[in-house]
């Protein structure tokens, strides 16, 4: 097989990649040995590949690595809690909530009053029938008490239930229980 200069130039890159069939490679080598121009083309091309393949040819700006690292760190999500961390946090939440509830119940032991300024009942017979109205804050022993409003919707319930619902004794008709 005989090859021309043009064929050598066309395949010179593949030759350097060792990507030509053995017959062609042999023919190219025979040609190159006898051709100064093709020898120079091969040497020059090989030298180009060699020079540019050197790590020193990759020149990066000063501080490039640091800036890249910093930007990456800034974009990172916050560190995730480990399983143990989550367990500790959950236990602490339960403990705080439990302590709060315990403290609350030990102070009042009763339902929250409808009026924060009212005084809780003392010694009202639990079974005593009283009347309450939906928008009111007091329970009354007398239906005719002037402080009872919204009589159209009043209910008659036991004093215990009234207390559980946060009503307090009327300071007019039930002042003996205050």
């Amino acid at each position, binding site marked *: 097989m005989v090859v021309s200069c043009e064929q050598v130039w066309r395949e*010179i890159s593949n030759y350097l990649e060792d990507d030509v069939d053995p017959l062609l490679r042999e023919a190219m080598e025979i040609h190159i040995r006898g051709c100064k121009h093709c020898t120079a083309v091969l040497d020059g091309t090989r030298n180009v590949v060699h020079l540019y393949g050197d790590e020193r040819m990759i020149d990066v700006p000063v501080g490039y690595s640091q800036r890249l690292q910093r930007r990456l760190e800034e974009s990172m999500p916050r560190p995730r809690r480990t399983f143990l961390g989550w367990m500790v946090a959950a236990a602490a939440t339960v403990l705080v909530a439990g302590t709060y509830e315990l403290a609350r119940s030990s102070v009042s032991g009763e339902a929250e009053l409808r009026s924060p300024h009212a005084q809780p009942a003392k010694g009202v017979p639990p079974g005593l029938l009283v009347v309450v109205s939906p928008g009111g804050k007091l329970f009354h022993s007398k239906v005719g008490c002037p402080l009872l409003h919204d009589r159209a919707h009043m209910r008659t319930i036991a004093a215990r239930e009234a207390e559980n619902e946060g009503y307090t004794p009327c300071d007019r008709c039930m002042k003996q229980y205050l």
Partner: protein
Amino acid sequence: MPEAVTSLENPAQKFNEEMLIRRIRDGEHELFYELIRPYERRLYAAAFSILRNEADAEDAAQEAVLKAFRHIRQFRAESRFSTWLIQITVNEARMRRRKDRSGMMESIDDTRDDEGNYVPRDLADWHEIPSEALERKEIREKLAQALASLGQKYREVFVLRDVQHLSIDETAKSLGISTASVKTRLLRARLMLRDLLAPGLGGSWTGKLSFEKGAKPW
């Protein structure tokens, strides 16, 4: 027998990468920089080969790294991590270039391969430029200048194959072109660079590198 230009692949490094990727996916995000550190310079070089501007190249490389981090779960182990990373960088740089030049008449996406053969200049007195010459800043600058003067499609292929040492297949995949196109462009890029650098041998390195008209029929 020619000294074949081979792609670098280190099995130990690949194994280490797989371990790191698994741990990052499991939540150890801080390991990501360790994963990309071996390639950070190459990412910059890939971006620079397209954008030819230091600040833009750095910004594109950074953005590519962030995208890789956000999409690490999409990485499939059948390809090399470095190839995947470079592919993201190339896409990012191309997108920026397209955006920057959207109003210009110049065709920036000329992906056609030139017909006809390239005729290398008759420089029968070629002498090798030794690697030691790279210690000299002015030599590195001349090489960089020659590379920058190549057309976009030649520069991209040359940088990925001969500077970054990707394989022909990886280069094709990274650029979204056929292996035949990679080979054609690589041949021309290498011959053009050889012609551009040859005048330096005669002591004219101080002069501006340029093509001689008529010497490039593509």
